[in-house]
């Protein structure tokens, strides 16, 4: 397991930047003041946190609807263990897929591979998935379309 080696200041900065940054010329001024360090130092620490892999990405999080991606599907696949790496590689390159995971399957749920597929319409989603299934030569899959969004927030991992 990854050891978390963060100083108190690093932790405070990481907690702060997981929220929505103040939209102003100096977004870190209030934080710097609170921590009693220079803004320059805050920025240095953020850059280091990113370098050390604590931050996956930094910037604006946009809405799906913006690009007209209104059809969202969780497509679950039954992939033989020995083909996982190969299929994983193909799916990662797919523009329409945002997330792709290997998970354990269950007795009444034989699916071990999970892809989130986004497109403008449901039929476009289906077309993309059919193409992927041909490309990967896998036909054991099930499409679970989003009917309703009950919750969607950015996760905040408090440290």
């Amino acid at each position, binding site marked *: 397991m990854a050891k978390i080696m963060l100083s108190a200041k690093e932790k405070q900065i990481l907690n702060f930047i997981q929220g929505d940054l103040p939209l102003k010329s100096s977004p870190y001024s209030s934080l710097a003041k609170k921590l009693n360090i220079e803004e320059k130092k805050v920025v240095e620490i953020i850059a280091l946190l990113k370098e050390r892999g604590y931050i996956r990405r930094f910037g604006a999080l946009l809405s*799906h609807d913006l*690009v007209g991606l209104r059809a969202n599907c969780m497509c679950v696949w039954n992939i033989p263990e020995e083909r996982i790496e190969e299929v994983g590689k193909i799916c990662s390159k797919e523009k329409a897929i945002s997330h792709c995971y290997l998970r354990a399957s269950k007795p009444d749920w034989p699916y071990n591979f999970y892809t989130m597929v986004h497109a403008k319409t449901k039929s476009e989603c289906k077309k993309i998935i059919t193409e992927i299934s041909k490309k990967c030569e896998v036909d054991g899959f099930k499409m679970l379309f989003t009917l309703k969004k009950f919750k969607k927030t950015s996760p905040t991992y408090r440290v």
Partner: protein
Amino acid sequence: MSQKQKLSLKILKILQSEFPITKNPYQMLSDKLDMDEEELIAEIKRLKKQGYVRRIGAAASASRLGYKSTLIGAKITEGSIRANIAFINSYDNVTHNYLRDAQYNVWFTFSAKTKKEIGQFIKIFKKRRGIVNVLSLPSKKTFKINAEFRF
């Protein structure tokens, strides 16, 4: 597409992919976009208000920070959906929760600092009225996560 729309798109792209880690990020971006910093900030304010920009900040690595998470699929009876959704959504550990067109009709993610905490939640959740069956599917390997939108 109007000039204004083109500019908005350009701003969104740059905010998503090239947000600089620096003391005055909007000043740097406004130079790049050849506009005033104040003008840029006002435009971003508008884009946020309209819902195009959900948030500007960091996406932390859950695994790097030692968090455990799982995807939960639940078979929930029609009549109990409302009460059960309210219960699920009351947890901060849940960030995504959707109704899907399948027998396992409710799918959500649950993350916590320990596996034990996840296990405790599932135990309570399973006992609730209307919960027919529950799948907990922690990831064994991540191939792709949260890529940026291309537009």
